[in-house]
């Protein structure tokens, strides 16, 4: 099976430089059969990054991509708290750079319309849009989106595909929350490999709306691959989840950039 990993970071992995860390990730990915990695956020994370932090973190990813562009795709890290800088980072890293997606994390909940100019421009560029979400029993961060917040955003952009990061973590809730919003896709990454996540997602969303990701290096590739390898679903559905859905979403921007994959 072809496997593309939607969700990787340069943290939690050995290496003194961004390119060393991405090289390490690729080394481990090779052991478990992963062909391509999507990478976002830099060496030093910030939950509520300043405008300059965004630029520095994106610089790290650009540097890592320069050495490993045949194995990795980059997503630009943006924040609705810094719309102007985010839009300029989009131009720098996606329009004029090698990146092909957008990462939105926990600085500002995504139901706030402040985020709309970022989504609008990313959609124009056909960039893949990824929004972190969780439903935490232990309470979310102040700026951390839930899948419900993402549904509110997705309703404002019904033609734009958007990925629901972590499927909300508590996936029984996340899957239900996004089920009726057909432009939302479920990212399987970054929660424990609890049995049933993929079976429920396939049943409720359909295999066409599910994408494999790991959240490595903090997570092992292994535990997250197991959600698909171990699921009681067809091999055809596994192939969609492991690669085809993400690849299809990404193909327009890859073609526009002349990238073959």
């Amino acid at each position: 099976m072809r496997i593309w990993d939607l969700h990787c970071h340069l943290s939690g992995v050995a290496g003194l430089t961004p390119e060393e860390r991405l090289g390490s990730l690729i080394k481990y990915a090779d052991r478990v059969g992963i062909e391509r990695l999507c990478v976002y956020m830099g060496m030093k994370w910030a939950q509520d990054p300043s405008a300059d932090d965004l630029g520095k973190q994106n610089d790290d990813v650009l540097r890592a991509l320069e050495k490993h562009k045949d194995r990795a795709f980059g997503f630009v890290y943006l924040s609705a708290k810094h719309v102007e800088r985010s839009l300029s980072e989009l131009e720098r890293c996606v329009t004029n750079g090698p990146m092909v997606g957008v990462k939105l994390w926990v600085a500002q909940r995504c139901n706030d319309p402040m985020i709309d100019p970022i989504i609008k421009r990313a959609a124009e560029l056909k960039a893949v849009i990824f929004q972190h979400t969780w439903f935490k029993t232990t309470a979310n961060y102040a700026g951390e989106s839930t899948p419900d917040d993402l549904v509110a955003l997705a309703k404002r952009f019904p033609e734009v595909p958007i990925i629901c990061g972590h499927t909300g973590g508590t996936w029984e809730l996340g899957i239900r929350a996004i089920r009726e919003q057909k432009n939302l896709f479920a990212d399987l990454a970054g929660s424990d490999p609890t049995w049933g996540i993929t079976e429920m997602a396939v049943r409720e969303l359909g295999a066409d709306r599910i994408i494999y990701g790991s959240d490595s290096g903090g997570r092992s590739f292994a535990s997250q691959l197991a959600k698909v390898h171990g699921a009681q679903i067809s091999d055809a559905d596994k192939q969609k989840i492991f690669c085809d859905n993400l690849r299809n979403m990404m193909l327009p921007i890859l073609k526009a950039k002349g990238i073959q994959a």
Partner: protein
Amino acid sequence: MNRRLFLTQAAAVSAAPLLTAADKPSGLVDCNLHLGPHPTRALPEIDEAFLAKRDITEAWAGSFEALLHRDMGAVNERLVKRCAASSRLSAVGSVNPRLPAWQTDLRLCAEKHRMPMIRLYPNHHGYTVADDVFAQLLTEATKLKLRVQIVAQLEDQRTQSPLMQVPPVDLKPLAEAMKKVPESRVMVLNANASMITTALRGCTNVWLDIAMIEGVAGVENLLTSWPADKLCFGSHAPFFYWESAALKMQESVLTEDQQNGIRLGNARALLG
């Protein structure tokens, strides 16, 4: 497609069947399984077919019923009956030292059911490993030649039912408790890397499983700070997809000795 990409894809395709590769060491002890109904999830049954398909030669199984039931004698009886369905299954009974007359449950595990070990859930049952009652239980279990499994956690706190929130067990007092029972042999299940590098540092006679070891190449990395003869294969199935633990062995580069020890030899040594 360029040559490098072709080679990468070829490697990916050839890596995938490693889960069932014929060249892996024969014999696998999975020391961390549960049977019976889970309180919040409908999970697949661990049966002979499940074990045979995955080449699990020995499966140490506790009961999910032990988490909340108070009639622990009946829980352990049902567990033994469930395990009779497969020669690969080995029942690991539970004892809750907060229940009156817990000593009877302990004795039945050893003398009637001939179990080699028991499984404890301190935070589900309302005690800590610093409590006197844990010291008493460890002492009595050791006298009966029972090994003791301590379940450090069962589920990420962030995803637990709001009506049943159970934090991870504080393992820091374990080393001190075990010093008072030097012959005791303890296996901690579902410990994560943070617990191991802080709370369990310096513990001797403690075995671990790999079910909740996370991070890229997690097993390989753990062995830089934890003795290779005290790490065992444990999947936490069916709560976790079993393939998670199997793929962790593939994601880490391990020597043949390390592979054999984790898959089989270290678990046997715990029982020996």
